[in-house]
């Protein structure tokens, strides 16, 4: 049962070759674009690697980069094959190359689709990675004298100002963490001693936030200490004041940012996938129609081209057989089998 049968006159074949030539150039360019997008996404993840706990999410940009490079190679060869297609003398040398070529191309094209699906599937992993990373960042905010953690304060401050967010889930996370180092606390003062005593773990907790949580759009100078205490500030109500500090948490801000980025990239990669598939389909049609011409005296006859000679399942089995045979060969035969074999010989 032939899949995708199509009659092609000589004129149509020529047009197909021309169209395929252009399309393969376009697809090479799209492969380069995919690679660039992968690099860009990777740099974006690396920039904020300090607030991410693990690098699981890096599989998306890595896949995109591999797919981009591979598709550039595939489309280059597709262009070369297409150039030789109308020349009956040069075309046969590509014969043995074609089967593994199709196998590789279909694998790479499905990998493109997988990359797009991954970018949606990995959202949960990204969120949990950011949750842990931000929690640690806020916890080690005060440790500017500890090597390895001395840049956490800078990182968190920059992050909060750039993404206009405060804390992990929201600004109240800062109330639960001691973010002022003991080096800057006057232990001789009664207020400090009282506060530390009132806490179970002996931590100095305040209802204040760092200056990087301050919202520049606020009409009044920033209130960052004694936020929940309405009487400490004139004409101030903690519940109705919205513009004073950033209310939203940094985790949500970062997840939204990265998902937006990956959605856009996913859209572009999907269109690249469509272009790549059409290149492969056209190449297959061209190859099969040219094979019917081979050996004929009159090159300008009408021939039939098809996508698959047998049905989809049979073609798949044909491809997977050599791969499976390689896998069986690697298996060690059990001793009783070898025993019976020796007895027989």
């Amino acid at each position, binding site marked *: 049962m032939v899949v995708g049968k199509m009659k092609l006159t000589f004129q149509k074949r020529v047009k197909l070759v021309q169209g395929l030539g252009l399309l393969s150039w376009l697809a090479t360019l799209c492969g380069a674009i995919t690679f660039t997008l992968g690099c860009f996404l990777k740099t974006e993840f690396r920039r904020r690697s300090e607030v991410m706990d693990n690098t699981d999410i890096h599989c998306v940009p890595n896949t995109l980069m591999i797919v981009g490079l591979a598709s550039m190679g595939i489309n280059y060869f597709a262009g070369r094959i297409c150039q030789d297609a109308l020349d009956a003398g040069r075309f046969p040398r590509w014969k043995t190359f074609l089967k593994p070529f199709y196998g590789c191309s279909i694998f790479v094209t499905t990998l493109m689709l997988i990359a797009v699906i991954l970018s949606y599937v990995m959202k949960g992993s990204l969120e949990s990675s950011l949750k842990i990373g931000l929690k640690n960042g806020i916890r080690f905010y005060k440790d500017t*004298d500890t090597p390895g953690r001395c840049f956490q304060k*800078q990182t968190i401050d920059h992050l909060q100002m750039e993404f206009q967010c405060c804390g992990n889930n929201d600004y109240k996370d800062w109330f639960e963490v001691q973010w002022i*180092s003991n080096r800057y*606390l006057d232990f001789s003062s009664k207020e400090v001693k009282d506060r530390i005593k009132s806490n179970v773990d002996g931590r100095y907790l305040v209802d204040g936030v*760092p200056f990087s949580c*301050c919202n520049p759009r606020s009409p009044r100078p920033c209130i960052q200490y004694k936020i929940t205490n309405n009487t400490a500030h*004139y004409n101030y109500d903690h519940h109705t004041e919205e513009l004073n500090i950033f209310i939203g948490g940094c985790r949500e801000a970062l997840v939204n940012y990265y998902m937006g980025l990956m959605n856009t990239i996913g859209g572009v990669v999907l269109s690249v996938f469509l272009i790549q598939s059409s290149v492969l389909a056209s190449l297959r049609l061209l190859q099969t129609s040219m094979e019917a011409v081979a050996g004929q005296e009159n090159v300008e006859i009408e021939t039939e081209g098809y996508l698959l000679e047998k049905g989809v399942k049979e073609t798949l089995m044909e491809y997977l057989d050599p791969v499976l045979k390689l896998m069986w060969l690697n298996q060690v035969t059990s001793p009783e089998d070898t025993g019976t074999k020796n007895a027989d010989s």
Partner: protein
Amino acid sequence: MAVLPVKFTKTKRDKLAQLLWVLNWISVVTGIILFSLGVFLKVEINKRQDLMAERQLQSVPNLLISVGLIACGINFLGGKICYDCVDTSKFLRWKLVMLPYIICTFFFTLSILVGGLMCYSLHGQLEESLGLGLREAMRYYKDTDTPGRCFLKRTVDLLQIQFQCCGNEGHRDWFQIQWISNRYLDMSRREVVDRLRSNVEGKYLMDGVPFSCCNVNSPRPCIQYQTTNNSAHFNYDYQTEELNLWMRGCRQALLDYYTDILHSIGLTVLIIWLFELSVLTGVRYLQTSLENVWRRGDPECESEGWLLETSFVATARTNFNIIKNLGKFNQINTASNGDPNIDRPSTAHYGPDNVPPKSTPIAS
């Protein structure tokens, strides 16, 4: 004696014409580059218009934009002319246009040079404009309820955060203005009333700065109020603490930023000017060599091309005389009673005898 003459064979002329065609198209691209540089500079200046006092800063980007557009047009025409110059018959179409075109392009390249040099001359005006603008912006920082000034607080805060600067010259500028609005001052408190009374103009001044002056690189949480009071904070010395607030003034920061942009743009414009000048020189050589070919009548012969036919001084003198005579053309010669024909010999022919007729007496 011609200025810088060069002999051109037919093949050399053709190659020159083709090369100039390509170079003219490259010049169209450089014209687009000039245009986009002008647009970029205009956008950058407009972004911070709130912080700049009124000065003639828009002239430079406007000049670059117009010069860029005109360059595209002129070089497009030049490309067409050079393309046609390969064929001597087509050259005749452009023969009369070429010299005016070269003169126009010469003056136009002068304007590119002026644009490039102006980029370097803006420094003083920029400094003055920024100094005044920033002072006004800081003064109206607290007026977030006044229409027209309500965004100044946000602008100044974002500026100080982005450019990592504080105040006009330094953070002490904030000590001299009231940047906390009276709406947020508790007038019933004694401390507030004391502070207001102690100031001559009744302003609430303090040794504090807005949060946007806080230095991100500081190892300790930001100290923005009572910055000069060492005893108000533990383990703090105002004189030695450098990382707490941004040390640089915003005027210097913005000036450095704009100076960098203007210097890069100026350098690019000067390089483009040199390129345009070389293209113009090529076109002049092509024009003079083709004219000489046309004068001799033989399209295949070797001809000479030059920049100026006679020496520089002689050319200047002839052009000056032409301009003077242009002026004289409009003048009337008052010596002969306004009749321009009075001294001209008569050229009329009076029949076969050529005897002029007697004038008939008028009957009185």
